[in-house]
């Protein structure tokens, strides 16, 4: 159960099962053979709450489980072994998993994240034990380099190269930091990994710290992730009790411990130098690189900062070998990537796919396509630093190079599906609202530039755009990208540039006073179609502004001068007689 599952009612469902099982005497009678496990997120948020009933290795998965359904599942399925067929997860659930390839998430959704023994029984901490007791640091780095693992936080920097640079530093004190300050709107990959399998991240950190020669580590995690923080803290304390953290780990001379540092809600603290400043107790503002943190990081010491997902890959690479990992993905982008699939898509949720999978397969085979048969317009990847990939480019393979080529990025793994009802100017405006608010204020192009971009977008969506605004957006965007200090400013204009690149016609339509997707309020007019209006009066009753008049069974009319464009009439009309454009 992750945050999503709990929000969908997972805790109530578990309680219902506990009560029901105890009341029916099953638990008492067959306690040796019956157990109940709370597991990490399985990804398919859209179908939560999911419950597996396993009888003699026969697994049945139920979807949309509510507490009042529990008693019937217990009575019919658990007692009489007849599954409640109408509640069993159907084709969607199985299709959702069919094209996925799970490495990082392989244990999420099957093991209890709060039970260290569950992790250990699945070969957990064996990789760390093997490395610490029998492999030299440079050989570990060799394995990671051979695996082709690249940073999952967004930039895709080769992990082995980063570790090697830190290892070669002669400083006595070095640091290993896990960046769990996931902040992209619509992204919840790192959160789910920590909630679902915190020990994999810890094990990855131990291996990394050993390789670079660090004896202190930090997990910098958002305070807005309370469940992840709780599970991480429990996992750290359990690992300490077992001797996997602390002094002389696995009987070796290697010492390493990890502290948790909570972020205070600044998006920019995901940028590594701002993150370091924040740990040091300073205002979270980035500084210019070089020097890079591997040379001068936390407290001026060599520091490696890896993303959660990157680190969670490490134990699996060590366990299964570099060749195994490198066998997935493309020539330059190895392994898998976790994405948070959201937006106008049927099966929204958390997915893990091999690098290089065509975007189409993610959207249609895994995601089940757009909701309600709507027309897909674009897929936004990489969050506020990313771009929009139009529907006619769905065959683009999803890997670092290919997405960069079409003007987007893999980023940390946000993937927002947009359909015909989304206005692309509005989408760009949304992301700019976010980035300009989250700019740290240090450098001019980001602080004032993103504000100006947003103002121009605002006026375009309000029908006050000026001739030359599109060109001005392009020019200002490219200047902000070139002149900004850190990754935030250098990528913030991407949503603007990519939407102009592929949907310039929508921008132009706005300048001519039309919003093709009928989203931008100021450009909309609501009116009633004579041929469909039955004169039922529903819209009159729904209108909060009293803008609609008309007698019963006669054509109703909207007064555009009074209409506040709230859309209440549009929603309430059963005859599709209200039109907006």
């Amino acid at each position, binding site marked *: 159960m992750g945050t999503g599952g709990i929000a969908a009612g997972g805790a109530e469902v578990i309680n219902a099962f506990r009560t029901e099982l105890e009341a029916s005497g099953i638990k008492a009678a067959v306690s040796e053979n019956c157990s109940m496990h709370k597991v990490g997120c399985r990804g398919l948020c859209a179908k939560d709450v999911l419950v597996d009933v396993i009888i003699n290795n026969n697994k049945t998965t139920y979807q949309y489980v509510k507490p009042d359904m529990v008693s019937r599942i217990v009575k019919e399925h658990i007692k009489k072994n007849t599954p409640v067929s109408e509640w069993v997860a159907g084709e969607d659930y199985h299709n959702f998993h069919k094209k996925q390839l799970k490495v990082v998430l392989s244990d999420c959704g099957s093991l209890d994240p709060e039970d260290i023994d569950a992790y250990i029984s699945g070969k957990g901490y064996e990789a760390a034990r093997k490395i610490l007791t029998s492999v030299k640091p440079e050989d570990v780095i060799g394995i990671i380099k051979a695996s082709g693992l690249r940073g999952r936080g967004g930039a895709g920097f080769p992990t082995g190269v980063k570790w090697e640079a830190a290892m070669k530093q002669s400083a006595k004190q070095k640091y290993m930091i896990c960046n769990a300050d996931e902040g992209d709107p619509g992204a919840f990959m790192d959160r789910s990994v920590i909630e679902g399998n915190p020990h994999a991240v810890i094990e990855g950190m131990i291996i990394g710290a050993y390789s670079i020669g660090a004896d202190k580590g930090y997990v910098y995690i958002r305070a807005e992730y309370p469940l992840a923080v709780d599970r991480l803290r429990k996992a750290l304390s359990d690992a300490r009790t077992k001797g996997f953290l602390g002094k002389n780990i696995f009987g070796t001379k290697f010492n390493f411990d990890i502290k948790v540092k909570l972020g205070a809600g*600044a998006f*920019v603290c995901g940028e590594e130098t701002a993150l370091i400043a924040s740990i040091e107790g300073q*205002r979270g*503002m980035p*500084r*210019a690189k*070089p*020097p890079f943190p591997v040379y001068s990081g936390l407290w001026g010491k060599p520091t490696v900062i890896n993303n959660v997902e990157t680190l969670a890959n490490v134990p699996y690479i060590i366990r299964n070998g570099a060749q195994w990992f490198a066998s997935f993905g493309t020539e330059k982008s190895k392994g898998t990537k976790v994405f948070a699939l959201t937006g106008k898509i049927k099966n929204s949720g958390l997915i893990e796919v091999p690098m290089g999978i065509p975007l189409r397969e993610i959207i249609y085979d895994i995601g089940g396509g757009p909701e309600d048969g709507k027309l897909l317009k674009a897929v936004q990847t990489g969050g506020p630093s990313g771009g929009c990939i139009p529907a006619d480019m769905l065959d683009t393979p999803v890997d670092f190079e290919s997405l960069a080529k079409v003007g987007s990025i893999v980023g940390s793994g946000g993937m927002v599906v947009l359909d015909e009802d989304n206005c692309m100017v509005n989408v760009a405006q949304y992301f700019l609202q976010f980035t*300009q*608010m*989250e*700019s*740290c*204020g*240090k*450098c*001019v*192009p980001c*602080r*004032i*530039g*993103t*504000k*100006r971009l947003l*103002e121009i977008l605002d006026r375009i969506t309000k029908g006050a755009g000026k001739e030359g605004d599109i060109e*001005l957006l392009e*020019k*200002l965007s490219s*200047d902000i990208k*070139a*002149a*900004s*200090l850190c990754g935030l400013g*250098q990528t913030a204009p991407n949503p603007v540039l990519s939407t102009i690149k592929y949907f310039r016609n929508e921008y132009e339509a706005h300048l001519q006073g039309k919003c093709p997707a009928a989203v931008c309020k100021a450009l909309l007019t609501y009116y009633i179609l004579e041929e469909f209006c039955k004169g039922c009066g529903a819209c009159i009753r729904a209108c909060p502004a009293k803008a609609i008049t008309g007698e019963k069974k006669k054509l109703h009319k909207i007064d555009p001068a009074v209409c506040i464009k709230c859309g209440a009439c549009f929603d309430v009309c059963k005859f599709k007689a209200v039109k907006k454009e």
Partner: protein
Amino acid sequence: MIKLTIDNKIIEVAEGTTVLDAARMLNIEIPTLCHHPKLTPFGGCRLCIVEVKGVPRPLTSCTTPVSEGMEVVTSTPAIEDLRKTVLELILSDHPNDCMICEKAGDCALQELAYFYGIKENRLEGERRIYKKKDGNPFIERDMEKCILCGRCVKVCEEVEGVGAIDFTYRGFQSKICPTFEKDLDCEFCGQCIAVCPTGALTGKAWKQQGRIKDTRETETTCGYCGCGCSLTLHVRGNEVIKIDSREDTINEGWLCVKGRFGYTFINSPDRLKKPLIKRNGRFEEASWNEALDYIAERLKKIKKEHGPDSIAGLSSARCTNEENYLFQKFIRAAIGTNNVDHCARY
């Protein structure tokens, strides 16, 4: 030593030197707003960006350390175009009321706007509006003119060791202010005024007292204490209207609240110009000889009647060593008592 080329000129500099400093050694001008030679580099204004061969994006020369064989180009059409955009952005959020600004004629931003010929601004938009509210008699803060270069924050932290101000808020709303946006309540050394490149921080004492072109500069030494800081008096007519200090002085241009602001007594009608002696319950003007004779006579009388230990001398730690030496000599040898101390030795 590290060898590099800047604009095709070869230079050898010590390791750790920044590209900006190396360029300045070659007399190559690179525009800056947030850089200050005495403060740690900030890299926020982005005006000092340069192209470095092999690096895909421009780097700020103020933060980039030199490296062997580095090839730097400080000015290209693309770089100048970016600098112009940055300046336009700054000016789009600036009152641009230069005709009534205290800093006019001495303002780094005004200079750059002039050199880059920025008259019209493509990027006009919302401007930050702040209320002025400081009640202190020394520092005028006009935060609408603040370009967030961070120099004031750094000088307060790195030179004064006070840390009275810092960045607050995020994005466009970012602002430099004291804790909880309270009124400024610090030592009022005014170092922040000295390093502010714009008219955001000025001295209340020199408000509307005169433009730079109207003043003469007189170098002098501060008389307040034994430090002997060098002062530059800005004199208009026969009146001191402002005091600051040059960076190439013994005090490196830094001053304290007294040295910087404590000059308005000069033309004060209350200023004491001659000694006063109280006669018949009233202070009357006297000559220096009269006054000194009177003191000597009284000291002698007290010593005779009550003994030397009835007299004590208290001096100031801020006096020069020589002055303090003479003072204790006087108390010990002339008065004949060991009752001598100064304010730092309680």
